[in-house]
């Protein structure tokens, strides 16, 4: 029993050492990494101000993945939230973008871009920004 306690304690200690050394690396390994952009391009039409969102950032159902960040204990953490937008396409403007009002999404928000069809995130899932 005593010998077993020693073995158990030693194994747990070894595990703690390993996790201390490689905890950060494991986080990077298990967390999906994405490319992100900040929405800082705007388009004014009359009194309305539109945020320009690249079409490549839209999912198949016309949503975008907005990235929220918070200062974690060890590092800056980024969380993904799927947001469905009522966007419009303006024929006179750049065709590579869709346009949403600032009521829908704030200027300066960070979104995942590009998004491919296989990309799927749970709401609140952590990501690493490349």
């Amino acid at each position, binding site marked *: 029993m*005593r010998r077993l*306690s*020693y073995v158990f*304690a030693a194994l*747990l200690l070894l595990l*703690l050492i390993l*996790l*201390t050394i490689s*905890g*950060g690396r*494991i*986080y990077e390994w*298990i967390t999906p990494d994405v490319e992100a952009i900040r929405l800082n391009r705007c388009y004014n039409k009359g009194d309305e101000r539109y945020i320009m969102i690249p079409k490549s950032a839209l999912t198949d159902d016309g949503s975008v993945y907005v990235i929220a960040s918070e200062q*974690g*204990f*060890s590092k800056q*953490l980024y969380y993904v939230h799927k947001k469905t937008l009522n966007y419009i396409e303006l024929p006179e403007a750049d065709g590579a973008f869709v346009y949403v009002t600032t009521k829908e999404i704030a200027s300066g928000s960070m979104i995942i871009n590009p998004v491919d069809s296989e990309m799927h995130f749970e709401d609140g899932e*952590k990501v690493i920004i490349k």
Partner: protein
Amino acid sequence: MKKRLLLLIILTILAAAYVFPVVLTIVNSLRYSGSAFTLRQYGEFFFTNHTAMLYFWNSALYAGAITAVSIIVSFPLGFLFAKVRFRGRDALFFVFVVVMLLPFQATLLPNYIQLRDMKLLNTPLALMLPMMFTPFAVFLYRQFIAAIPNELLEYATLETSSVIKLLRHVVMPQLKAPISALAVLIFCESWNMVEQAIIFASEAPDIMPLSVVLTRLPEDVVFAGATIYMYPVLVVFLLFRETLQKAMEKFRW
């Protein structure tokens, strides 16, 4: 028979009251956002909040160094008070006991001023030095050594005139169990240091022990952190449980 049963029930309730917080911490560490029996909280602790483990090793370093130095430094002092006759010995020992009985807060300011003058504030030594020279260890050593028969020491002095040899080959082997017990007590006390770290290292957050950092962990991993924090103390207790019991039974406290 009824009395015995009643006593057993009362003791069980009292024991449960002591164990309850520990069990609650471990059980809660296996829950994460409503889902039960998951190791997710540990995953979050080790991976997302991986730097928390650095504070664990800070604690381990402080507790290990304090225990080792206290055990070594206090031993000859304990022998001095227990077996060497000199003028003012009892008065000096009385001072030791009084210092031991003083609460931490009473010695806080002198310690702080001393550490500041030595330019040790906000360094790991500031957390370790005041605890390395604890009168508590000297007091316990004195009690342990006082129980060793004088005849044994007198006989040993016929064999050698070296005090170091006497301590090393005669006194020390008699104290294996008490030294282990003392080491466990000092380790646990220094592992749980909080006030010292907050006051003596307020401007050095990187050198804080885990006991202080635990409160700053995100709420969703705090129970996993607390369980990891308890691990060394539980292991030390489990490994030295028999020795602790032996020491307490054999020697006058």
